[in-house]
């Protein structure tokens, strides 16, 4: 009895204790709204659109804001040359194009159900709020409609691999601001895999250290993507389609209305970022010709994830004697040949190439003339040169490759790659069929002939800013054979010189030396006599 009384007392203490010890009740300090407390979200959700409808109950304008963005339309008109760009239209030299492949590609669309041209772009409930606002890191979408799996689903069908069901209620109750994880879920994996496309963006940026990126350093500044790519009304700024080649403005100020791109280095650092050190002024002077990124991103793909540098589609389709697709890996385990895709070259810690860039980009689109006889086709020709006053020297990832085109109609093509049908290249390994289907989906003519053309695509590098101690030193460029060896139209001390003046100069100095030596020799000999 004594014992039980003891326990009763103990129980009472335990019961009362939290009230005293936790003096302040648990309160979230990073938000004013705990979505877990919203009745609208305390229910079971059977699909993505159901969640969206719940979101729209309060966030009335959100979907319509998203409708205006390229994240939704996958279409953007280049303000400079009126080209119709966006994922819906462009052709690259990775997996080439969306068109008939939407089922696979649209997994990264901020919507639900875009598989073909019948998708309703005016539907509000088809906007996917969670893909950007998930904070649990568990949200995923399935190919072929881009729906989150609400029960364990086999993917690809028949593979025996299962994608786990997603607890939509939990995801919905824990929505938050966008993060490197949410943006990265698509942008780190562009081109079909981790780090494939950009070179300066891969999964190492989810929680990088300072060596990989000084701004996103998870134990330091911990920038999210939106810290720079501010998104007023869901319109994320700082796109490559209409890039800022040279920002001549000052650092933005709180409250000040500024129309310039807030994602540039200058929008925070201004025009004279170098403050300390004996040659700060000289370094600041470089900002009229050299992009910040050129010195401050000495290499890309630095986080341990390789990026694709070369993709040769023309070797795709080789099969094993048993007729099975082949997969070859290098000694680090990176795929270097895939029957579905051809030969790859991947690389880490890549030194960029350098080129003048004024922000203007001209794509080679479907229907633009492409001819093998003209050499390499530029997927996106960059504007800029030394003298237009709007260009800076930028670091570039140059993606090179060889991809199918129509030699008769002289145009790039949009092959049908992904799909569980009898024309998809990745299943049937027949280019003619695959391109016919793909071009039909794109409403474009196809001659039936297939050839391969060499292509190059330029990716201005801007992420993975290294700590300042790791920035390039003077000699990296001020030397013969240095980083900027191939950049034309500019005089670089240490690299350049007038060959005639140099020759004449050394001849003159050498001539004087010979002359005085001879004079001295005669004097010496005569003195002896």
């Amino acid at each position, binding site marked *: *009895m004594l*014992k*039980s009384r*003891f*326990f*009763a007392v*103990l*129980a009472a203490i*335990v*019961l009362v*204790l*939290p009230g005293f010890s*936790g003096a302040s009740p*648990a309160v*979230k300090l990073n938000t004013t709204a705990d979505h877990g407390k919203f009745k609208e979200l305390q229910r079971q959700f059977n699909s993505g659109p159901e969640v969206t409808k719940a979101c729209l109950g309060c966030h009335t304008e959100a979907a319509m804001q998203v409708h205006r963005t390229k994240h939704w339309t996958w279409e953007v008109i280049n303000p400079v040359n009126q080209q119709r760009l966006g994922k819906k239209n462009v052709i690259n030299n990775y997996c080439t194009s969306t068109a008939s492949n939407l089922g696979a590609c649209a997994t990264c669309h901020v919507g639900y159900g875009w598989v073909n041209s019948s998708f309703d772009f005016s539907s509000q409930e088809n906007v996917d709020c969670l893909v950007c606002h998930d904070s*649990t*890191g*568990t949200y995923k979408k399935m190919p072929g409609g881009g729906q989150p799996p609400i029960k364990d689903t086999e993917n690809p069908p028949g593979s025996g691999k299962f994608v*786990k069901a997603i607890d939509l209620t939990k995801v919905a109750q824990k929505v938050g601001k966008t*993060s490197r*994880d949410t943006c990265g879920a698509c942008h780190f994996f562009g081109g079909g895999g981790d780090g494939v496309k950009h070179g300066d963006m891969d*999964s*190492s940026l*989810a*929680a990088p*250290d*300072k060596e990989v990126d000084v701004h996103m*350093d*998870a*134990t*330091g500044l911990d920038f999210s993507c939106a810290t720079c790519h501010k998104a007023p009304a869901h319109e994320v700024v700082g796109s490559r389609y209409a890039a800022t080649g040279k920002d001549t403005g000052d650092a933005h100020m709180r409250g000040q209305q500024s129309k310039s791109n807030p994602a540039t280095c200058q929008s925070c650092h201004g025009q004279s970022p170098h403050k300390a050190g004996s040659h700060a002024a000289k370094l600041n002077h470089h900002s009229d010709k050299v992009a910040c990124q050129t010195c401050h991103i000495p290499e890309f793909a630095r*986080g*341990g*994830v390789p990026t694709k540098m070369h993709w040769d589609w023309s070797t795709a389709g080789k099969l094993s004697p048993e007729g099975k697709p082949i997969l070859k890996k290098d000694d680090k385990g990176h795929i270097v040949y895939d029957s579905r895709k051809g030969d790859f070259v991947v690389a880490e810690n890549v030194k960029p190439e350098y080129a003048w860039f004024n922000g203007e980009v001209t794509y080679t689109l479907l229907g633009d003339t492409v001819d093998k006889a003209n050499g390499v086709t530029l997927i996106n020709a960059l504007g800029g040169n030394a003298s237009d006053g709007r260009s800076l020297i930028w670091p570039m990832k140059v993606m090179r490759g060889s991809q199918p085109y129509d030699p008769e109609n002289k145009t790039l093509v949009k092959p049908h790659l992904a799909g569980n049908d009898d024309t998809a290249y990745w299943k049937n390994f027949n280019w003619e069929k695959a391109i016919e289907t793909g071009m039909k989906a794109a409403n474009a003519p196809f001659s039936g002939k297939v050839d391969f053309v060499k292509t190059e695509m330029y990716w201005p590098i801007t992420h993975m800013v290294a700590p300042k101690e790791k920035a390039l030193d003077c000699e990296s460029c001020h030397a013969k054979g240095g980083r900027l060896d191939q950049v034309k139209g500019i005089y670089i001390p240490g690299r350049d010189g007038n060959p005639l003046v140099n020759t004449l100069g050394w001849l003159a100095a050498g001539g004087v030396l010979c002359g005085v030596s001879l004079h001295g020799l005669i004097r010496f000999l005569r003195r002896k006599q």
Partner: protein
Amino acid sequence: MEKSHIFATVITTGLLCVSTLASAYDADWKRGRVYYRSVCTACHAAQAGGSIAPSTMSKSQWGTYLQADKHAKGKDSMKQYVSKAYRASIKSQNKAAEKFADVPEDELFEDIKAFVIKGAKDGDSPASCS
């Protein structure tokens, strides 16, 4: 008498559970990720012969392991390496320890647990070491 004893024990245990649940802390897997990589992995890679990816164990294995709280085969405890004292001792060389110097120990432990459970072999997104 014996019965009431058991009853009391059950009540007490129940209340203990309730009290922990009542003040349930909403674990931050991202903070756990940073601490795990910057402190656990960094030290393991440098001194303990290699890093341990969350995906090397299943959720239940991680659960059991963390519950047992035996680090280095029982030589010391996990909690020790999450403690404020430990963080203070390494914070001059470790930015994660410095950044999270004042995070309550229980919370940080829960954060790490959330990260490894999420990244476990059978977790929501298995995390290997890249």
